[in-house]
């Protein structure tokens, strides 16, 4: 590793500068320390690495293509736009990359009961999928509001043998599902593995999830050099907790490449109806880590809002908080309306229906591409497909499905 690198974090206590850490109840500390040890052992174990490689290829279907979005590029009349097509993965999003890594780790740790939180349900589906594949018990915590707006994923999880526990506390979204999953974990710590879906939570989760998702950026780097013989000028990805963005960004952090993380601006950044923790939040401690949070002056966490269930979270992974403070990554946002517009245009011009989450990234690409030269290159992470969002979008457009 280079001395002056953005890739040195976290330190041995899980800190990325001010951010990260291990803010959990004492009951969980021994397990978190055990997990950290198990993960660092696994990392240097060739058998483990080969298993991940094999499952990535044969089960997930990696590598995912890097696709030149020619019609969209022509439409926008700016930089060349490439899609990193992680929506083509088995289960329809990037979430499975992390799930394969963590389920293999759970197996090594001899934990046979898997719990997870889910917002949009993409992580829930990916967890239920790997649990089915490995024959593990699967319990998914999902906010009541999210269950209503992601019905098809709820059905998929059940079909895969997962048990869904509706969470009614709070606003019934991702934050509350995570609280409930943590409560389950404290209660069943002996046989249970908590498979966190984003690059957040107590150390070692943020680093571990980032590592498992970095395959996205590693492939993209190889692929763009193959196709264009140069590195891209800009990377763009949406951010809820931030795992798909870190996965794409991380391998490029020390390269001369601009990066844009796109938060959900919901109904706009002026009020409280958004989920833009970096643009509008302040540092605080929640769900095991210190990071930027949407909160009031008394330290009570605010509920976020986004049309996209996957971005509707009042926090963000701690490494993003650090990268933001360092000025290495630019954090911007797209509103519900902008994302919906991008959703429609991408569908019409490329024949690809994106999930509402990467539609936020696309909406920013629409603005960015126009400011760039035609020989410049943008890679956007198309981290999920839109099937799950059809009803939400139809509702919004006032169409009956």
């Amino acid at each position, binding site marked *: 590793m280079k001395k002056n690198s953005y890739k040195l974090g976290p330190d041995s206590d899980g800190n990325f500068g001010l951010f990260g850490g291990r803010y959990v109840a004492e009951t969980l500390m021994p397990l978190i320390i055990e997990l950290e040890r198990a993960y660092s052992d696994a990392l240097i174990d060739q058998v483990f690495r080969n298993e991940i490689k094999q499952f990535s290829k044969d089960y997930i279907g990696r590598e995912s293509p890097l696709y030149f979005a020619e019609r969209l590029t022509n439409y926008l009349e700016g930089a060349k736009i490439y899609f990193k097509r992680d929506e083509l993965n088995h289960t329809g999003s990037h979430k499975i990359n992390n799930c394969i890594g963590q389920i293999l780790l759970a197996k090594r740790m001899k934990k046979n009961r898997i719990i997870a939180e889910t917002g949009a349900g993409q992580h829930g589906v990916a967890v239920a999928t790997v649990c089915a594949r490995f024959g593990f018990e699967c319990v998914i915590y999902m906010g009541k509001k999210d269950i209503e707006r992601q019905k098809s994923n709820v059905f998929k999880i059940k079909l895969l043998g997962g048990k869904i526990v509706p969470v009614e506390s709070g606003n019934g979204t991702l934050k509350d599902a995570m609280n409930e999953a943590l409560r389950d974990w404290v209660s069943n710590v002996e046989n249970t593995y908590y498979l966190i879906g984003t690059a957040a939570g107590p150390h070692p989760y943020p680093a571990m999830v980032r590592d498992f998702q970095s395959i996205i950026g590693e492939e993209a780097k190889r692929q763009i050099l193959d196709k264009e013989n140069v590195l891209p000028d800009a990377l763009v990805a949406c951010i809820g907790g931030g795992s798909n963005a870190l996965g794409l960004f991380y391998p490029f952090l020390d390269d001369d490449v601009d990066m844009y993380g796109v938060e959900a601006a919901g109904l706009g950044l002026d009020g409280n109806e958004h989920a833009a923790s970096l643009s509008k939040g302040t540092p605080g401690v929640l769900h095991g880590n210190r990071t930027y949070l949407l909160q009031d002056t008394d330290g009570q*966490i605010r509920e976020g809002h986004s049309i996209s269930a996957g971005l509707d979270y009042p926090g963000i992974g701690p490494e993003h908080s650090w990268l933001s403070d360092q000025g290495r990554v630019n954090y911007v946002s797209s509103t519900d309306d902008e994302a919906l517009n991008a959703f429609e245009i991408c569908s019409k011009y490329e024949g690809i229906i994106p999930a509402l989450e990467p539609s936020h990234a696309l909406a920013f690409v629409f603005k960015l591409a126009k400011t760039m030269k035609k020989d410049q290159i943008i890679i956007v992470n198309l981290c999920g497909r839109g099937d799950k969002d059809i009803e939400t979008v139809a509702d919004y457009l006032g169409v009956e499905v």
Partner: protein
Amino acid sequence: MATRISRTFDELKSNSQTGLITYLTAGFPNQDLCLDIINELSESGSDLIEIGMPFSDPMAEGPIIQQSSKIALDNGHTMELIFDLIKKFRTKNSQTPIILMGYYNPIYQYGNENFIKKCLDYGVDGLIVVDLPPEHDSELCDLTIDIDLDFIRLATPTTDQKRLNIVLNKSSGFLYYVSIMGITGTKEPNLDILKEQVIKLKKVTDIPIAVGFGIKRSDQAQKISEFSDAIVIGSSLIEKIMENYQNNKEDLVLSEVSKYIKSLKAVI
């Protein structure tokens, strides 16, 4: 340094008594009644009082304390109102130790040094911060080392010997032993296993051991009091308050609290 907490435990010990620690969420069920209940708790025999600092995301709490926290926050409860509550309590009572219990973020937003200064000024005796393990001592615990404010930690059934040494280091006041693997007010502890665990703890530390999470009935309280220095009652107390308050029997709240505390105190 002899704090109010250590004096209380010394006194209990010299009288061969087990202490009763009660937990109440600040601002629950409303600001005025909360103060009256705290006064009643100490008059009825609660030796120490934990005041819960409401938090929007109380990860270690079961449904009952979660709900009390939500009610307090919906009533507009703030950190300043907690100090206001303690100030009013202290005008009448300078004996009973007060422990603030809660989660780190509200403290962090208040400002750690500011918070500790306020605790000293208003007569708070101890802190329990559920999500601040020894790994993060430099943030808050280290600020309490040379002052009359105890930093009380939790040990749990998952705490092994090596971990216990880390937990005990810089622990003061008492050690809070979590009798179950889980959240507040849900499971019941297995008393035989619990006894073994507490006896093991007593071999390695001189600080008093209080047992909590999952104690509800006087028969459990009685048995646990035989091998511990104090027992903690939280969810079951709040449940009693909630039942009466929500059935418009506000006038019965104080007498029910008193009856319950006395019934526990009588058997431990």
